[in-house]
């Protein structure tokens, strides 16, 4: 990298930061919506109603076997067709990412719930709680501690996954970098910068997960 590369980066900084903001917003929204849908999916999957449980299983298996890009294309194509509502690329990406990540989140949540000993549920039921209450007050609080670090790791993967939404024309961090790289014909500094930023953010994220794991694990042993 020489000084003109540095100048290019400095000159494009506001535009790049705007892109990074879109990436972070997308990660946050899709992460939140994905975890919520994941909770619903995992509870459905563990439900005693066989057909419902099977449907949730089919959903998770399907979404885990197809590429994210294909999901994004599906949503971009289908939603306007079904609703007659022309949706922006950002909304399509948000829905696609949510549907996709929900499958992964739900597996993590299911594992967390199943890691809580059955005796806990039985004891809760014996005190007269309904199944719903046992889940809400006894099982989930314990499960959340077990799965929080894994959910965070999955959210870092989600952050990296958002880097493909530029194919829908979204100006996220990667999309903005592509535009600058093409406009100024300065590909090398741009993509090195993009790689460095993704690397630093994800590495910092996984360090946070590691320290959270340390802080959460003593309470698991106490439970």
């Amino acid at each position: 990298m020489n000084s003109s590369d540095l100048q290019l980066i400095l000159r494009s900084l506001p535009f790049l930061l705007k892109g990074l903001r879109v990436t972070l917003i997308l990660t946050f929204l899709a992460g939140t919506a994905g975890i919520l849908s994941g909770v619903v999916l995992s509870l459905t999957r563990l439900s005693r109603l066989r057909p419902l449980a099977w449907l949730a299983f089919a959903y998770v298996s399907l979404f885990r076997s197809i590429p994210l890009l294909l999901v994004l294309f599906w949503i971009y194509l289908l939603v306007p067709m079904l609703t007659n509502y022309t949706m922006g690329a950002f909304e399509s990406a948000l829905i696609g990412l949510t549907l996709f990540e929900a499958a992964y989140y739900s597996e993590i949540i299911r594992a967390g719930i199943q890691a809580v000993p059955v005796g806990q549920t039985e004891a809760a039921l014996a005190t007269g709680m309904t199944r719903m209450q046992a889940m809400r007050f006894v099982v989930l609080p314990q499960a959340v501690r077990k799965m929080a670090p894994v959910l965070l790791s999955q959210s870092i993967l989600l952050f990296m996954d958002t880097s493909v939404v530029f194919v829908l024309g979204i100006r996220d961090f990667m999309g903005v970098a592509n535009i600058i790289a093409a406009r100024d014909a300065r590909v090398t500094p741009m993509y090195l910068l993009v790689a460095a930023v993704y690397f630093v953010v994800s590495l910092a994220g996984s360090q946070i997960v590691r320290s959270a794991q340390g802080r959460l694990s003593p309470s698991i042993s106490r439970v």
Partner: protein
Amino acid sequence: MGYEFNWSVLRHQPYLHWLLSGAVITLVLTACIWVLGFLAGSVVGVAATSRRGAIRQAARVYVEVLRNIPPVVQLFLWYFVIPELLPAPWQHYVIHDMPHPEFITCVVALGLFLSARIAEHVRAGIEAVPRRTVEAAFATGLTPFQVYRFVRLPIAYRMLIPTLGSEMMIGLKVTALGLTIGVMEMTARAHQIESFTGRGIEAFTAATIFYAVSALVLVAVVTATEHWFRIPR
């Protein structure tokens, strides 16, 4: 909704040919990525258990760098940036003479991405081999290389079959990124049919079924392999 299905479009040329060639490219790409990922991942995974601190550190850095950069960014680095940084004769070869540049770039970029993930599993697998087993192997007079070759790796790989199977699945899915640099794999072909004919639902359904069936076959093969190589008790 007033959409009328027209599945016959998938039977007509050139669309049928596009789908089939997309399927073949996806499968070949997956196989290449997986072979490279497995070989490089095994080397790095073994290096990560080395007794020399410097080698362990190098393996650690390799894994952290390749795991924390999104695969599509790595693909762009290999496609746009790395040729620029090569010495002149190599650069000339890569840019002008290399056959199928997009495909080969894809194999290298995505294969190495996968190798970092596989390396982590291989390292964990080797470390999970009980200490006593390793000590017993040394006590029989095996050299360190022989201990890896005949004791640690065979036990580790057997334990890792299901994990390596899900990495293969990731390899299958990640091939779709090839479309960003112009590899005409399955997702790219489905998208192309959609733009040419407006028959997006039909084309994407075909692609979805293709990926789902490939995944099912993969799971079946992995389960059978696991069963086949199980250590008898």
